[in-house]
């Protein structure tokens, strides 16, 4: 039944319970808008046609004020906007009061990616949620203001640095929906996109366990690549030699890097680690200092994995890479289940 109403001319599909709050009010206001626009334009056209200047037509005497008329068109709109206010407010309260049993997911926004952290500590760049379950998102931002917006859910909330903003929703159908950043945040604002995947509750649990385990089982190079792709590094760095906002990372490891102050530095493990945690320390010649620090958001082992990945795409790195078979999960793996502070 919902499929029939989905994707109307005005609104995207109604994939959350908030849509049932928002849409009726939207269409009520739309009805009023159409009525009043039609009324005003019709009167305008009729008056212009009937009273337009032409041979033999004279201005006819008519009153230049009428308190009764003035009060009529003051009071009727007042009543109507109070009705709109009331329903807008009531709907907003419903959207604001978080159900006590909501499933909590932490959201970290940074230029220019989203990170969703689940109760078991696993983090992902895509939002996965169970259907028909109230979801509470607790959001923070590491740099500037962002805004998480899911049109199909009719929800939007700013992620503001220095405070937690929270909101909730409940998906009413499974599927994949767009997530946008709605608050302007610099160069790649329009690329700060991700998806929300709505699963059946059992599938969701299975996905969460498997995703966490899969990350544990990955060899460091593969884990590093996954982090590189999933944590927003690709917004500014290509894995080839193409310049984006930051340098391409192919062949960087082990090379001599020229810095903005004119000096050169060998790109070994410590340099890469510093570049991730303290990006302003050594800025590569020809680039600005846009990179945010990942201190506190990547664990040491995750940074190790990223370094392994950079080694794997560099011709300057000659020694063998750890292979999946040779790696015992307990020693070299990247534990994704470390809870964030």
């Amino acid at each position, binding site marked *: 039944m919902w499929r029939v109403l989905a994707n109307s001319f*005005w*609104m995207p599909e109604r994939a959350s319970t908030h849509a049932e709050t*928002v849409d009726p*009010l*939207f269409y009520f*206001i739309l009805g*009023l*808008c159409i009525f009043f*626009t039609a009324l*005003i334009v019709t009167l*305008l056209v009729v*008056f*212009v046609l009937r*009273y337009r*200047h032409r041979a033999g037509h*004279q*201005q006819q005497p*008519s009153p*230049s*004020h*009428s308190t009764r*008329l*003035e009060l009529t*068109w003051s009071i009727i*709109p*007042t009543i109507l*906007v109070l009705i*709109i*206010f009331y*329903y*807008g*407010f*009531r*709907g*907003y309260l419903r*959207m*604001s009061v978080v159900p006590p049993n909501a499933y909590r997911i932490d959201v970290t926004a940074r230029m220019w990616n989203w990170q969703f952290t689940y109760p078991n500590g696993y983090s992902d760049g895509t939002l996965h949620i169970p259907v028909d379950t109230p979801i509470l998102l607790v959001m923070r931002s590491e*740099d*500037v*203001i962002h*805004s998480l*917006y899911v*049109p199909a859910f009719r*929800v939007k*909330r*700013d992620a*503001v*640095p*220095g*405070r937690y*903003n929270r909101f909730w929703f409940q998906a009413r159908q499974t599927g994949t929906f767009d997530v946008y950043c*709605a608050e*302007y945040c*610099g*160069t790649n*604002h*329009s*690329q700060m996109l991700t998806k929300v995947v709505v699963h059946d509750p059992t599938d969701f649990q299975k996905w969460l366990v498997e995703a966490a385990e899969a990350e544990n089982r990955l060899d460091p190079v593969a884990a590093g690549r996954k982090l590189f792709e999933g944590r927003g590094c690709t917004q500014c760095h290509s894995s080839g030699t193409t*310049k984006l906002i930051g340098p391409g990372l192919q062949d960087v490891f082990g090379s001599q890097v020229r810095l903005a102050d004119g000096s050169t530095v060998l790109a070994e493990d410590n340099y890469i680690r510093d570049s991730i945690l303290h990006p302003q320390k050594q800025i590569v010649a020809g680039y*600005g200092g846009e990179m945010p620090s990942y201190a506190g958001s990547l664990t040491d082992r995750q940074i190790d994995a990223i370094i392994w990945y950079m080694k794997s795409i560099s011709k300057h790195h000659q020694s063998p890479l750890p292979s999946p078979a040779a790696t015992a999960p307990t020693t070299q793996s990247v534990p994704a289940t470390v809870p964030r502070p």
Partner: protein
Amino acid sequence: MSTTQASAAAAGPDEPAADNYLTHRRGVRSWLLTLDHKRIAVMYMVAILGAFLLGGIFAVLVRTELLTPKPVFLGNAAREWDLYNHLFTLHGAVMVFMFVIPGIPAIMGNFVLPMMLGAKDVAFPRLNLLSFHLYALGGLFFVYVLLGGVLQAAFGIHLPGGFGLDTGWTFYTPYSTGKSITGVIPATMGAFIMGFSSILTGVNFVASIHMLRPRGMTWFRMPLFLWGLYATSIIQILATPVLGITLLLLLAERALGVGIFDPALGGDPVLFQHFFWFYSHPAVYIMILPAMGVMSELVPTFARKHIFGYRFIAYSSIAIALLSFLVWGHHMFVSGQSPLANAIFSLLTFSVSIPSAIKVFNWLATLYKGDIRLQTPMLYALGFLVLFTVGGLTGLFLGALATNVPLHDTYFIVAHFHYVMMGSVLFAFLGGMYYWWPKFFGKMVDDRWGRIAALVVFVGFNLTFFVQFVAGSQGMPRRYASYPEKYRIYHVISSIGAYLMAVGLVMVALNWWHSLRRGRPAPANPWGSNTLEWRTSSPPPHDNFAKAPEADDPYDVSAWRFDQASGGWVHEPAQRGFDVVVPPTKA
């Protein structure tokens, strides 16, 4: 060509005077250092139309970038998105600070206000010149910085100090203080200087309206344009200093590292939004109130009827000015502001819609049983009525909390504020320009081409912006350099509309240019209006009036008759304080 070839005898206002304000003195200095409100208005006209041209070119560039989701100009994605951010910032900032806010008050207000009062000048002519100099200085500075950034982003050309701006016209922190590597400081300085221009103009207008009203002009016999300017001036005086304070705090944070808005320094970024919108929401009414004032002149003049509900229109201007200070929080419904504050701001927001609705119905009622002349200024007035209706009504979606949440920061907002700020204000601006043009330059504008251009602009505008309501309600976020493929159809339609509107505006410009070159000499009162500025010759002499005119009901047009010979309206019988009308002999 033919303005100055007048008889020396200048018997009446319909006779082009030998000496008018345009020819009173010659030379660049006589313009740049003039104290004549009319010349200052003309200089504002040149500067503001220049800003409008610049903002318009950038609007076209923005719409061209958005024709496809891919980079259009440079090819390289990251550089392209940077360029786009500079483009939309320049478009928005120049249009808001340099065109829409000063447009009607600085050009038409300066020109008309003293004459509507039957006065020789504004209350403080020297202060008026200072306002213009501040506007020009701040504006040049602002444009230099912003254009420098565009050149750098597009071509890699570095102008000294031309850092550009990529924060949007809203300067939101902490992006503007912490992350943006552009010229936030110099751009802010430019806006700050222009803010002073706005404040001083406000002071001048308030003083003029209080002190200079002529005999017979009580508050409720004042033309409604003056009520609009009075309400605007109140906002300019009270709100613009807050912008100045905000921008200074921004400077303090960026230059000195004082933590006010940046959480990294212990500040609160939402505080900036409160400061900013405490000015910038009232600023929306700085834009629309003068436009409403123009409407209240155009509609009764061309309907040949007394305005309907004078007092309600006058009071509603003041009501809008006062209420406009109480609604700024509706820009922050999803920022984390408390639900209680949201509810209060939502309720107050709806209160502003009532006086606006009252005005629309009053203008409509003025048409009833009139003798409507569909000349160019009237077409813009009718266009305003339609666009303002759409713009105002769509505000209801955004004032209501539940519907605001999904629509906030989408193209729905973009469409809404363009209908109000751009559609309505621009239409009133163009209508006012066409209306007072004969008084400004003593030349008539070709009405047929004027009407065709008005139609093209109207169609182009609606094509551009109506579709953006749908894009926005479907979820398209604003300030996106690129977008998911599903929104492409809306963007393509919108861009085509923008090109069409550009064509219409070029037609308007040619229309005006043609008038300056070959326009028929204008009679003193080409439209038959009863406000005082039409009781002197076109263009007016340096001192405006030979004798101070006496005011009566500004909307009683019954004494004016169209005179075929002069192509203008004459007063029957000739009244006190009004020179005997002698129709000019045709060559």
